């Protein structure tokens, strides 16, 4: 029996310095989105692929919840050594929070029946840091967060892990399997996927699943299925910084003027 590792990944949004907020004020304008695989997921995928490469029968399946654009990130995962990629999407999933996403992932896990589930500690765009843990909760599986070392032999019922705690403290623990682990940056060195392998991975199929395939209904996902809703997204007022230029004397004079201005004195 092959050991199956499911890696939950997310295509995140990165932003340039210049961007605009959407007209409804609830998100950044999609025109400014730069999409990429979540940084943490690079590490969790690498950890799974390393187990596969260490020998034995291991299947690495990457799963994401997202629209068609997310295929690009899944291809990158296939290029880096994932065996299969699954993308779950339905229009109704738009606006899901981490709980709703976890519900979809938990359904996918029941469908795939993996022996291990890896997730990133958090996503770089929304930073909920709760999806992986929520999945474990929904499944009733053991879980561990912020894992930075993972030791496991194929077929074992337990794994030894090391976690990062506050103040630089490390914790070693055993965990029963199957389990959900959220993986921390630095646990390994993610490999480089050359553009060529990514291009070759384009030929590999990406399975797409919808609500029905996972026996979910529209009320369990999207905004209606979420426990939280975005009210407003905005850029806070920035403080001012100014480089004072000129000769030393000029600089000093300018600085004095600024101080006086703040004090409210007249020059």
């Amino acid at each position, binding site marked *: 029996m092959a050991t199956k590792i499911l890696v939950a990944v997310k295509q995140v949004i990165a932003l*340039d*310095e*210049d961007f605009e907020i959407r007209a409804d004020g609830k998100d950044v304008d999609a025109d400014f989105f*730069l999409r*990429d695989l979540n940084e943490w997921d690079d590490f969790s995928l690498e950890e799974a692929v390393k187990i596969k490469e260490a020998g034995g029968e291991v299947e690495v399946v990457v799963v994401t919840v997202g629209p068609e654009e997310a295929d690009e990130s899944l291809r990158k995962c296939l290029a880096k050594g994932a065996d299969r990629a699954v993308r779950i999407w339905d229009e109704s999933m738009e606006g899901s929070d981490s709980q709703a996403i976890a519900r979809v992932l938990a359904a996918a896990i029941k469908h795939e029946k993996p022996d291990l589930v890896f997730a990133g500690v958090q996503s770089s765009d929304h930073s909920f840091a709760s999806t992986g843990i929520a999945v474990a909760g929904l499944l009733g599986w053991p879980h561990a967060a912020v894992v930075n070392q993972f030791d496991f032999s194929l077929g074992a019922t337990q794994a030894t892990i090391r976690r990062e705690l506050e103040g630089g403290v490390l914790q070693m623990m055993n965990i029963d399997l199957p389990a959900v682990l959220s993986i921390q940056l630095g646990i390994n*060195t993610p*490999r*480089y996927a*050359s*553009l*060529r*392998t*990514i*291009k070759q991975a384009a030929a590999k199929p990406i399975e797409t699943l919808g609500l029905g395939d996972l026996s979910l209904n529209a009320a369990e996902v999207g905004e209606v299925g979420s426990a939280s809703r975005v009210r407003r997204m905005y850029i806070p007022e920035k403080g001012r910084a100014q480089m004072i230029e000129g000769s030393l004397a000029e600089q000093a004079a300018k600085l004095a003027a600024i101080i006086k201005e703040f004090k409210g004195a007249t020059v």
Partner: protein
Amino acid sequence: MIDSLSITRTLFEDFRPLAVTIFYAIGYGAIGIFLWGTWIQIRKYRYGTAYAVTGTLISRFKQMTGTMLTHRTLVRRDHAAGGAHALIFFGFALLFLGTSTITVEYDILKPLTGMRFWYGDFYLWFSLVLDVAGFMLGGGLVFMMWRRGWLKPPKLNYARPDRSPADPDYDRSGYRIEDWAFLWSLLIIAVTGFVLEGMRLVWLQGRPEVWDYRWWSPIGSAFAVAMRDLGLGAETAGTIRSGLWWFHGLIALAFIALIPFTKVKHIFTASASLMLRDPLAAQRLPRVPDSQESVGFSYITDLNWKQLLHLDACTKCGRCHEACPANATGAPLSPRDVILSLREFANKTLASGALPDQVELDIHGKSPGQVSMETLWSCRTCMACVEICPVAVEHIPIIVQMRRKLVEAGDMDPLLTKTLQTIAKTGNSFGESKRKRGSWTKALATPIKDARKEPVDYLWFVGDYASFDPRNQKVSQTFAGLLQEANVDFGLLYDSEQNAGNDVRRVGEEGLYDLLATANIEAMKNAQFKTIVTTDPHSFNTIRNEYGDFGGTFEIEHYTTLLRDLLTSGRLEVTRPLGYRVTFHDPCHLGRFNKGYDAPRDILKMIGCELIDMKRCRDNSFCCGAGGGRIWMPDPVGVEKPAQNRIREAAFIEGLEVYVVSCPKDLTMFEDATKTTGNEGRFVVRELIELVREAVASPVVLEAPVEQLA
């Protein structure tokens, strides 16, 4: 009167028929061994992958012969060794031709037709020429011995920068034995030839047809006269001659038999290598065919047959070793050692009729014959090695092909990995937003046309450094101002331009290069322009030489030729000759790669600068260290960087005011190196564009456009 027919040398004079038969048997045996050895070498090359030779063999043969007869590549940067080689080469060639001439008469013409020509005047001139040839050969050999034994130039030291003294293949002492054996055996053949000649004269001194014409063999007869005066009798001379004859003959035949197994084979391999020379080997790297499963070189059998042949052409002359900027600054790379390692590897694994297991063919690693990752990543792809190699060995394609394999396996510096990912994501190495590519133009009073929206004469391909690096942005703004003042119609691709890919390709990330080149070509095709101009030699090279393979053939020039034209035609006028004492750094990709040595120098002259070239200039320019993607990799700490080495060279120029560059990366590298070598304040680093700006202080007022006059 002596019958001219008797003025000749009787072959095998006084030999018993059996002796002659034995000699012929040994001769045929030697030729047999030679042929067998040749077949082993050919069989080795046949293990390589396919390579299609372009152009006609005749034109290639002509070019090779020209190179060989002029010794053009051999005298470069080492006149003495080149000259000595010429003595050996021409001496050897004449002696070989002479022996062949005798064979033609004695073994072919005379037995078949009874015809003879090797007598009389022809014979006498023949004797004289061959004596001179023998003298040349001996003289050349003696010089080479003196060079190896006493001069000991550092480039002939085989100690390797990529191995430590404890490694078994550290100094390749085996090669030194071979070098000396080669010199001594040839010298012994030459000297015994003269002695033999002298002994024959003493022996046959009684025959006027021999003795009276002795001075046609000046060296042999000088020796003969001396020996005779010392009391050597004819009979003794005859005995010595018989013994020496066999000694001389056997060494010569052994020499022939051993050609394919020793460095002597360079007679053939170097000629073939020169004939197969690709003049754009470093400028235009090989494309990976779409059908090819794996990328790059993993195994020795991934090299093509031409490259396997190149490995055998190397004569360890050390010119590349000396020219390599990585080697000069202590990096674990010598182009010579890459070639020799792979040669040794090929000789070990491809010598038999069957291939060993594939694992045995892996050329990556640290075992003898393998090339390590550290070595491959030390290369700046500056082309100094390829350019100076006298026998046309092409190191760079091999190094880049091996790097392609490393990139595929992810075996590279983490910073490089990051940069490649950044370029894939944003299209530039600075990780800036695509939209900001044209931001530097905002500081200009007159906006620059968008070549995607309106036709222009010149499409300016700006490149990453000139677009995003703050120091270089200033240069770009200055160049734009100059073009505007000269009323040049030009435009940009703005955010449709991406990294040109030159260095990405030289790193070995061919997939990413393909993506960048294709995107740029598409953007260029969507714009209307006559010529591309760029201030970046790296972009210049790849667009000029490599985009063609990806479907984009464009006319392109480096800004130096455009500025020279503008200055020559008076569209830019020098109003303030500068009078600076300057030196000019030839960028690898403008100079060696594309032979753009003159335009920048012409400009410097036109703007009134006094140019003092550094010793390493033009084709011997010393790389700043940024090429081949090295700008994205950290240099080891505490070791001299190539740019520092270069600035120290410039600092020797008395009264130097400006170190002139014409490449954005050079500006960055050398401004930094000027500070770190403590030369700040002694001289400044300037882009040539900035000097032109200074010299063309006030804009030339040109005729107003017609509509304004109306």
